[in-house]
């Protein structure tokens, strides 16, 4: 099977045009594609739409994440489950721009976000979920009662690119994640038109990954880069 391993992060993001929609996984650190984000920051693409559970940090967290792209004014819109942080002390870079009207936001409950991404991957046109019924999130949405329970209609979220962080990959792009690094990675890798992966471990030869233990099939992956020693690795951030 085709070798999808590239030599540099700059190379794999070089063709991403202004106006692209990019899925960015990660949950409180693990699984965040930091090297790809850093490369896109260098590359210069702007007017981006990001689909991500969180719009990235602000000044309170120095790590490379979506917040850096937002800070740099390169993001037009974020679809996420936090357009404001739970604590005003941890106001994100996005939140400031959003409040000023300089960036757009679409607030989506986290499970609906995951399901909308999965629906895009699965070719589902729309689905009814009970989440958000009776709240502001349901306003303006189509309602339907089925078997005595109320649901609202939600639509798939498609993307041009997914940035993925994996633990292991073979040369074809079969991926494995480690522990809570998995989070949104498998569903985003399946949903986006072009899937680009940063990988922690040395790239495996074809045929050495157990077919039963692949988390993301290589057919969903387009480009793979191994994170070099001087790349961006996960680091500890403590929260009370």
């Amino acid at each position, binding site marked *: 099977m085709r070798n999808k391993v590239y030599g540099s992060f700059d190379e794999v993001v070089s063709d991403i045009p202004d106006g692209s929609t990019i899925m960015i996984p990660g949950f409180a650190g693990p699984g965040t594609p930091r090297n790809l984000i850093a490369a896109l920051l260098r590359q210069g693409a702007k007017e981006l739409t990001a689909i991500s559970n969180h719009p990235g940090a602000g000044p309170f967290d120095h790590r490379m994440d979506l917040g850096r792209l937002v800070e740099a004014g390169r993001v037009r819109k974020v679809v996420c*489950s936090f357009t404001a942080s739970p604590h005003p002390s941890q106001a994100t870079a996005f939140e400031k721009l959003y409040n000023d009207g300089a960036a757009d936001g679409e607030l989506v409950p986290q499970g609906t976000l995951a399901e909308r991404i999965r629906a895009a991957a699965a070719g589902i046109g729309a689905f009814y979920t009970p989440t958000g019924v009776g709240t502001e999130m349901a306003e303006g949405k189509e309602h339907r009662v089925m078997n005595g329970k109320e649901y609202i209609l939600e639509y798939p979220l498609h993307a041009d690119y997914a940035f993925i962080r994996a633990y292991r990959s073979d040369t074809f792009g079969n991926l494995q994640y480690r*522990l809570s690094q998995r989070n949104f990675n498998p*569903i985003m890798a399946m949903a986006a038109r072009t899937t680009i992966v940063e990988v922690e471990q040395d790239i495996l030869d074809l045929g050495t990954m157990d077919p039963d233990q692949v*988390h993301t099939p290589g057919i969903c992956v387009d480009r793979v880069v191994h994170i070099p020693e001087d790349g961006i690795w996960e680091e500890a951030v403590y929260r009370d």
Partner: protein
Amino acid sequence: MQKTKLSRQQIANRLAQEFQDGWLVNLGIGIPTLCSNYDQGDREIIYHSENGVIGYGSIYPRGDEDLQLVNAGGQYVSLVPGASIVHHADSFAIIRGGMLDLTVMGAYEVAENGDFANWKTEGRKGGGIGGAMDLAVGAKRVFIAMQHTTRDGKPRLLKRCTLPITAKGVVKLIATDLGLFEVTEKGLLMREIAPGHRPEEVQSLTEANLIIADDLKEMEV
């Protein structure tokens, strides 16, 4: 008796004592994640985190953490034997599909009708929902762990929520630094009270009318 308010960990512990053997329990960001620190003795509670971790344990001491393993609050946690990992869509399938026996969440406000609000504060544009709305409609029970009043001393247990709600009529039990409260058809039942406090004191910090349990207990801290 010395007048004592419960600490964050003590609030978490009090709710953790209500967990039943074998329950699958989701812990939300804030005080709730502290519940996994409570020693359940012979009872076995399986903790689920919205990011797909099933079967985690106590929060790890600094320096010993695994950087790839966090709970809903982004805290580094341990795994228990028998743990498993799923992706985000499967994690919320478990939530929405009704497999959770309980979710414990924080809240800005809880109303006596079981409504609660925990995603949007006064005067701010946007909000932070995270998994709260999915958890609130999906779990069999919703417990709330919270401070009894705002930092300015304003009540958070209300007749009706003033903030935009997270879900309607789902809250069953609330632990605060001042007591333990059950949402009943007749209203908010105070079952336990913080050491050294009188019911009238707690009522004065509560907008909802409190029904005082016949067997009102003082909380053990």
